């Protein structure tokens, strides 16, 4: 099961803004001849100077990059800065993008670096993504309760988003960055290791801890005994 990678593929097949007709009468929407459902084509067109193609990439990914910024920084203003800087820097450096990875992965890499800089600036002595783990706690078998099928459906979307954001925010940065990249954004273990400059083994170890901690944090909302 690699759920988010499957989900991401599904996400990319959605029409969203990708098949929107670009209006020449709207000064923010320039016309383009590019067929707008292929990321690589959009990147090529943007590299060739088609700003509406780049704008299409922004429309496609802005919500996800903002969420990424929120998940890592846990601060709305910082998340906005992260998103804006990520898109501006990716536009400015588009010529350097070689296409070795997906554009989205490259964009995420830029956004993560921006977000980590924000964290380090805010808490210079507390944030390291490469420090060894010394924690000896074993959170696994403290709470063993079944959740039943689709426990998230007991909550409205807004309430669920608040629960998830809060739960991620309670994790240490070294765990929430790895979890966000792997299980929210669907970035592979190897790419996550590259982005963060840590080993694959370290990604796997932190991901396990993060998943178990989040399971424990969500338990109080989703366990069967919570059902009225």
């Amino acid at each position: 099961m690699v759920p988010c990678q499957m989900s991401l593929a599904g996400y990319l097949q959605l029409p969203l803004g990708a098949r929107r007709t670009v209006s020449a009468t709207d000064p923010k929407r320039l016309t383009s001849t590019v067929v707008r459902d292929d990321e690589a084509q959009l990147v090529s067109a943007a590299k060739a100077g088609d700003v509406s193609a780049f704008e299409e990439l922004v429309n496609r990914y802005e919500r996800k990059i903002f969420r990424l910024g929120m998940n890592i920084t846990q601060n709305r203003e910082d998340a906005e800065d992260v998103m804006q800087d990520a898109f501006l820097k990716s536009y400015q450096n588009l010529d350097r993008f070689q296409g070795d990875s997906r554009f989205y992965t490259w964009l995420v890499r830029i956004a993560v670096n921006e977000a980590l800089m924000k964290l380090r600036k805010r808490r210079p002595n507390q944030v390291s993504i490469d420090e060894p783990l010394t924690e000896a706690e074993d959170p696994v078998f403290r709470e063993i309760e079944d959740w039943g099928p689709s426990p998230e459906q007991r909550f409205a979307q807004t309430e669920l988003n608040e629960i998830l954001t809060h739960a991620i925010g309670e994790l240490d940065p070294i765990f929430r960055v790895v979890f966000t990249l792997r299980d929210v954004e669907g970035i592979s273990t190897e790419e996550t290791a590259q982005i963060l400059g840590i080993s694959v083994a370290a990604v796997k170890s932190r991901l396990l801890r993060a998943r178990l901690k989040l399971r424990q944090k969500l338990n109080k909302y989703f366990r069967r005994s919570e059902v009225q």
Partner: protein
Amino acid sequence: MNCKKVILELTSYLDGVLDASVRIDLEEHLSGCSDCRVVVDTTRKTIQIFCNSEPVPLPDDVRTRLHTALLERFRRNARTT
């Protein structure tokens, strides 16, 4: 396989990258250990819930500032090329 080993292999198991022989051992343990079954099931659901969560729409003011900044950059680039 014991419960501790199940937890150590949990991420690889859920990601579907566990060696076949280890997976068979793990699933054999799961068939007889309800605690581990619950941990595996609720951890799987944890991942799915985050994975399936839709990002909320950008607040209007945030989106406006983003696109204004981009337009400004497009214009500046157009002037210099």
